């Protein structure tokens, strides 16, 4: 920041954020134990943040690879490949139990979201996914797909909504193997989630929501149902009501410059990613008032690093990650560019 600038923050303090995320990398503070079940997700937030902040040299890549791989659940030697199990990754040690003598996991708590996070982290640290025993992940994923096209996150049961549709699509994309899902059924489910106002809800009938809309559009893009930069082309997508979606999405930017998740709600840092990424995918980034958005995000920047949900509050890992991701979408200098539909940097997504 040059001395001729005003005293208002106009750039993010990258060094502070690197220190913040590096501290998290070494030890997650005690309050995060209440989210321990999502340990891999927390790790994804930390490591992807460090990557976006162009500081991957701070990460011990081999240790990360070994740690992530230790969460994988593989079929045992006596396991029938058609036994209805899902062979993915556990999300945490509290849900992970050792296999028996035949390598059979009697307690298989592998989870779609953890699997997405595991693969993302592996890609970030440059691990070649073709080294992974991924066939069992891909084929067993169909055991999680529901008759209406949605996905259950774990075989022992759980809510089925667009979040896990997204995880499934991202996993298939990263493994370049779509045998684990019936794509047409998934597409139909997603379309059923488009609300009367153009946005997408988490399940059919639910209120349209920024996060759900990201899951919908990113999934459709990953599956190849939306072409790149679709707004620039003269043929608008007939799959979804694109003009209605665009109008809804752009109205999410408030007078404070930030993005809200739903109409008539407060602006929140994370929607700068959820909404911003949708616009990036559709080719509508320049419809955002980037200056105003930066202003809002900077008001959520914490003086010792990280971002909070609302201005003037304490930071948390989730909002910090999406704050960094949002600044990457804003092409902040010093940050790596982001692959919007995968939620990792472009270098991580496409390999070195």
């Amino acid at each position, binding site marked *: 920041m040059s001395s001729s600038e005003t005293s208002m923050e106009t750039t993010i303090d990258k060094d502070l954020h690197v220190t913040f995320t590096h501290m998290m990398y070494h030890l997650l503070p*005690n309050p995060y134990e209440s989210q*321990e079940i999502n340990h891999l997700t927390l790790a994804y937030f*930390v490591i992807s943040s460090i990557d976006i902040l162009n500081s991957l040299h701070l990460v011990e890549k081999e240790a990360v690879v070994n*740690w992530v791989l230790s969460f994988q659940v593989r079929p045992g030697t006596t396991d029938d490949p058609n036994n209805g199990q899902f062979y993915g990754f556990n999300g945490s040690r509290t849900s992970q139990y050792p296999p028996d003598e035949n390598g059979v996991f009697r307690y298989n708590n592998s989870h779609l979201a953890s699997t997405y996070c595991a693969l993302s982290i592996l890609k970030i640290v440059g691990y070649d996914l073709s080294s992974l025993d991924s066939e069992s992940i891909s084929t067993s994923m169909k055991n999680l797909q529901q008759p209406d096209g949605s996905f259950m996150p774990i075989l022992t049961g759980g*809510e089925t909504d667009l979040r896990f549709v997204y995880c499934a699509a991202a996993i298939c994309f990263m493994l370049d193997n779509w045998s684990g899902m019936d794509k047409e059924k998934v597409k139909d489910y997603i379309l059923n989630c488009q609300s*009367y106002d153009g946005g997408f809800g988490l399940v059919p009938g639910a209120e349209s929501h920024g996060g759900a809309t990201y899951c919908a559009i990113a999934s459709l893009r990953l599956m190849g149902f939306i072409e790149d930069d679709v707004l620039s082309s003269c043929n608008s997508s007939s799959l979804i009501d694109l003009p209605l979606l665009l109008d809804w999405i752009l109205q999410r930017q408030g007078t404070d410059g930030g993005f809200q998740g739903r109409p008539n709600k407060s602006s929140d840092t994370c929607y700068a990613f959820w909404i911003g990424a949708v616009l990036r995918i559709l080719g509508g980034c320049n419809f955002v008032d980037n200056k105003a958005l930066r202003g809002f995000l900077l008001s959520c920047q914490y003086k010792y690093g990280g971002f909070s949900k609302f201005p003037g509050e304490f930071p948390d890992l989730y909002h910090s990650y999406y704050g960094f991701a949002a600044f990457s979408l804003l092409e902040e200098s010093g940050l790596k560019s982001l692959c919007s539909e995968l939620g990792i940097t472009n270098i991580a997504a496409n390999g070195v």
Partner: protein
Amino acid sequence: MAGIIEDENDDRVPISLRPEWSDVTPIPQDDGPNPVVPINYSEEFSEVMDYFRAVYFANEHSSRALSLTAEAIGLNAGNYTVWHFRRLLLESLKVDLHVEREFVGKVASGNSKNYQIWHHRRWVAEKLGLEARNSELEFTKEILSIDAKHYHAWSHRQWVLQTLGGWEDELNYCNELLAEDMFNNSAWNQRYFVITRSPFLGGLKAMRDSEVLYTVEAIISYPENESSWRYLRGLFKDESALYVNDTRVSSVCLKILKTKSNYLFALSTLLDLICLGYHPNEDFKDAVEALRTWDFGEQDSDIARTICSILEKVDPIRVNYWIWRKSRLPQVA
């Protein structure tokens, strides 16, 4: 183990000192040789999960195991492994699910934005069946009385209506919520849900007329309310011709434009109507012109282009969008 911190709850008796657990050997967590992004666990957390590991691995179905799941849930309400095991115990121990429902209610009051709690609540309700209907509607109503936009509560309520019924009073409930806060977008969404899916109301076509009347009144009361404008459009989903030709829609736009106040959505709605084929008369052209309080230079005779120009000025956050919309308008002859 790294990072053990002092317990703050001095009343808590460690499990290792509880006589009813004396025969169980806790299984410590195996973090592996090089844990990455380690968590600074408290002693309490480590101990509870070490004992949970023991009973889970041994597949022990007992009331002490059930109590232990409650303790574990208290420390990490999102732990789906613990919740799943709890469900297995509830079934094998034949626990009264009405009691369990109370338990979930208590946990929810501290952790209401947690997917696993709501999933468990749904599981209990499914097991109880139709008799659970009223209590579930009541429960969600209580949550919504504190936070009328609570996403999980609305999701659960929609599931209850679809699975267990109770549609009769739902439109009325929406009326109440909207009377309290016309800007509650969740209530508008629920309204749409009810009129399109309630077996008692006849569907969107049958309800359209009365809903247009309701929505137009709402728009007149608060023309700056995005929710009502979107709802109005939604009433004509997949029926653009009806939307364009319904004089009540174009009339409310004109009415708001004439007030010269809070007219953003009126303008953009009129623009959308024109793009869908509406031909505004002189009244509209005059009303739009009256909003143009600055000099463009050459006056644009095309009302759609004028609307875009005004929006570029009065909705500056979306200036690039309105410029783009203008560029996509059919060329004026």
